[in-house]
Every structure is written in C-alpha cells, then in structure tokens.
C-alpha cells in the first residue's frame, strides 16, 4: 500500500458535522457478491461451477465503509473504476441490501441512476411517465401535478403520445432526465448522468441538477469529473477496492486520488513492459503473462 493513504483525513473536518441532523448514516457497510451467480448462469454452467468450486467465489464490493452525510452536505465519492462507487449508490438508494452493517437514510431519495430506466418501448411517453411514477411510489396527486412539468421539460412535442420506440436517443434521454428530476428529493444521489442530449438541453439539465443540489438536504455524487468535486462538494471520500482510503476536504482527497492513479498507471506500465519482455524471450506461457499483468 501507498503511504499517503495513511494521511489523517481529519485535516478538513466538515463544518456542519456537530449540530446538523444526519441525513445518511452508514456504519460498517459490507456488500458481498457471489461470483457463482453474478453472470447470467444457465443450469449447465452452475453444475460445472459446483464441481470445481473455487475458493474465491465471493468477493466484497464494499467493506468496512462508515460515513455520515449531514443536512447541507454534498459528498463526492471518487475512486478508480471498480472501486465500488456505483454499488455504494445502489445501496443508498435501497436497490442493493447490505451483506453486513447498517445503512440509515432519512428522507425522500431520488437517484439520478434512473435515467430512462426500463422505458417500455411499446407504450407512449405519457404512459411511461405514469408507470415510472408508480414505480417510484409517487401518489396520483403528485403525479397529476408533475406530469405537465415533465412534458414541458422534456420538450418532445407531439411525440409524448407516441410509443417510445419511435423516439430518437436524444428524445429518450431528455424524457428520462425530465422524469428523474421531476421530484425535488430530500436526498439526491447522482451517478455521472449530467451530460445528456444536445448543447441546449445539456445546459438546461445542468441548471436543473444544480437546482436539485441546492434544494436537497444531502447530496451524494459519484463522478470522474474532478472539477465538479472541487466546485460543488464540501466533502469527498476516496474509495479503492471497496474501502475508504481517504476522507475529508475535496481538494485534499482529489490530490490523493490523482497521486494514486498516477502510481497505478506507472505500475501497470511496468508490469506490461515486464510481460512484453518475458513474452519476447518466449519463456512464459501466455497464461502466466496475463496473471502477472493482473497482479
């Protein structure tokens, strides 16, 4: 491990932590995936797996994750690909239940993970709005109130009464965004969905996201855009391999993240060089070269 990781995160304490009410509380969270079932298995495959059961058929996507989000806080979650960022958002949204630990969420959640999720291709835009509202658990009165707003925001004209399958991908994205952002949530979960559609719509959607961020009591944002982190978040955590490596002031955490990714890039390059050299000599079977690459 790299020694910068041990740097105390308390250097930048969140100013609101002492008295503000807690919106999200995560304690010792662990999420375990069973590799035996993660891909679309058939009976055949699972019989095969049963006979050569590998010891590593389960892995922890998240482990020992503990943090709080208090009212007024905007928390960025950063880290390399596969660090468990999206899994963390899914847990906060209640989509995945933890394998261990406790997650407490106080307030109405809206996750912009849901852009156009599960649009029914054969139904009209309007029917899809209704269905999406019912999936999100919004009551009829709320739906009646927000449907005109959604239609107006999506701005797809008469297509709103045509089946989704006739939509262009831009129209689909716009409708998805309009539905996902129609309700002002207490707690907003964002997963890198800020850029959709053409130039004008992108500006409009960024505006709306900022509105939601300001209106929400708590925000958790997963992104690779470090400018967003330093500009809009007042705290950040760095996830690597499912564990919190650093937590605190966005500038500091982003700096650690940058250092780490430089380092791992260099390591990967070195491993690649080594493997290439070995491969050129021809002393290693291709499998060994690959396993070396991984480590």
């Amino acid at each position, binding site marked *: 491990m790299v020694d910068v990781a041990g740097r105390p995160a308390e250097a930048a304490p969140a100013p609101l932590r002492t008295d503000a009410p807690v919106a999200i509380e995560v304690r010792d969270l*662990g999420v375990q*995936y*069973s590799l035996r*079932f*993660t891909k*679309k*298995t*058939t*009976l*055949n495959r*699972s019989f095969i797996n049963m006979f050569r059961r590998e010891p590593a058929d389960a892995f922890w996507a998240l482990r020992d994750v503990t943090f709080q989000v208090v009212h007024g806080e905007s928390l960025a979650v950063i880290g390399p690909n596969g660090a468990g960022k999206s899994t963390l958002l*899914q*847990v906060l*949204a*209640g*989509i*995945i*239940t*933890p*394998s*261990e*630990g*406790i*997650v*407490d*969420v*106080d*307030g*109405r959640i809206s*996750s912009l*993970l*849901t852009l156009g*999720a*599960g649009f*029914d291709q*054969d*139904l009209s835009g309007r*029917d899809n709005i*209704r*269905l999406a509202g*019912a*999936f*999100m*658990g*919004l*009551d*009829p*009165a*709320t739906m009646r109130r927000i449907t005109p707003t959604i239609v107006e925001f999506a701005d797809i004209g008469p297509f709103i009464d045509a089946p989704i399958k006739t939509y262009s991908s831009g129209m689909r994205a716009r409708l998805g965004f309009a539905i996902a952002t129609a*309700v*002002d949530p*207490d707690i907003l979960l964002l997963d890198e969905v800020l850029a959709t559609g053409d130039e004008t719509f992108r500006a409009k959607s960024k505006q709306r996201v900022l509105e939601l961020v300001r209106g929400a009591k708590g925000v958790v944002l997963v992104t690779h855009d470090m400018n967003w982190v330093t500009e809009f978040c007042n705290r950040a955590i760095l996830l690597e391999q499912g564990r919190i490596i650093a937590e605190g002031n966005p500038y500091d955490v982003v700096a650690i993240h940058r250092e780490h990714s430089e380092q791992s890039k260099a390591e990967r390059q070195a491993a690649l060089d080594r493997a290439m050299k070995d491969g050129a000599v021809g002393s290693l079977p291709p499998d060994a070269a690959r396993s070396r690459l991984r480590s």
Partner: protein
Amino acid sequence: MDLTAEAPTHFRSTGDRPGIIGSLREAIVEVLSRQRLIRYLVQADLQKKGTNTLLGNLWWVIDPLLQMLIYWILVSVIFQRGGPDYPLFLFSAILPWKWFASSINDGITSVSSAERLVKQIQFPKLVLPVAAVVAGIANFAFGLIPLFALMLLFYRDRIEVTLLLIPVVAAVQLVFNMGMTVLLSALNVFYRDIGNLARHVLRLWFYLSPALFTLEQLTHATREFPIIQRLLLLNPWATLFAAYHDVIYEGIVPDWAALIRVLIGSIVFLGLTTIVFKRLEPAFAKVL
C-alpha cells in the same frame, strides 16, 4: 415539500433478513400498498398484447378454438375416440389450461426482463409476477366468449346453472397460478433455462392430467398401479380439470371436498413460494 408517497421516506437497510413470518407480512404489505403500480402494469401488458398483432385481442378468442380443433382431429377423427359432444369436453379443459400456461410463460420472465428497473429503482419485485398473473385473467375471460358461443350454437341442451360456478373453480386456479409463477419468476433470475424447461414440463403435465380424458378413465387405467394412481391424483390439475368438466360439460356441481383440498394446498404453496421469492429478492439486483 410534502410528498405523500407509497414508498417509505425513511428506510434502514441492514444485513439482517426478516424471518418467515416477517417475509410473508412484508410481501402482503408490498402487494397491497402497490396496487396502483400493479394495475398500470396489467393495463400496459394488455394494451401491448392487443396492439402488437393484426387481429389483436381477437386471438384470445381464436386461439383456444384452434387448439380445440387440433385435439378434436387427433382424438376423434384419427384415433376414433372421445365421448359425446367431445369438442365441448375438450374446450372446457383447454380454456383453463391456456390460462395457466400463458400465466407461467409470461410470468417466468417478468423479473428477469425488468433488469434495468430492478437495478436502478427500489421497488417490491413481487409486483412483477403478480401483475403478470393478473393480466392473464383477461386471457381466460376472453376465452369464455367462444365457450358460450359454442354452447349456444351447438350444445344448447348442456347449458346448466352450474356454469355460474366457473368463477369459483377459476378462483382456486388463480391461487395455484400465482404460486407457480411467483416461484418460477424468481428462479429464472438465476437460471435462464427455466423457461425452456417449463415448455416441455407443461406439455407433459397437460397429457398426464385428465384434460383430454375423464378423471374416471384415468383412475380406471391406473387401477393396477395404485402408487402411480395416487401420484396422478395428487396433481392439482386432476381436481381442477374434473371440476371444469363437471360445471361446464356435465352440468353437475364439482367435488367440493377435493376442490377445497386443492385450494388449501394452493394457499400453502403460494405462501411458501412467496417466502422463497422474498429470500431471493435481495440478490436480484446483484445477479441481473
């Protein structure tokens, strides 16, 4: 802003899973509190089925008639078997079976085909198979149209008040349909070949049940093999087909004791499959 919603605004999520009674209670609350969602899903399903084909919902009327015709040609014309008014006898079994088979076929993929929703929105997954089964009722209801047409045109003398008991038998079948579909929809998330398997199992099941022949013929044919007979009579469809034949074809009241046994068995079965579903539910978002 005050948002009254059907989904809870506060939740705690832990590694603990509720016990058997807890799972069952949770399932009942989920289905009852999400009735509107189920209704929308059913509407969407029916709307799609009606608009995707040239003849639309007319297929629900034509389908069982064609199937009846095939079995009639096979049994009466080719094998020279079957009893009096055999087409009506056939139809009174084909109608509920088509409902059963279509509920299962639609229901099996109800969860796995909602992959993106399951991974991106928190909602009780139980609504998916339940909606598929409820939508299947329309299949049965439309099939009653050709049944009554058939009776009015050709079998007027077979019309009895016992026809009014069709909904009672259908209600028992609905519970059984639900149990099977809930179970298979959950298993299909993990094993996609359940669907392939189900097609063949359903076919065998139909032929082993007294659908094309009577319950008496079944017991008579297996009288030498009491164990096989017992097994075949344990089949809920033995009772269900006999009950449909009784109320539609024979014009007599069904064997109430047997029907109540199937009802109780189906309720217990539905309870068990619901518990299995709830146990597997947390893994859906990870596996899909």
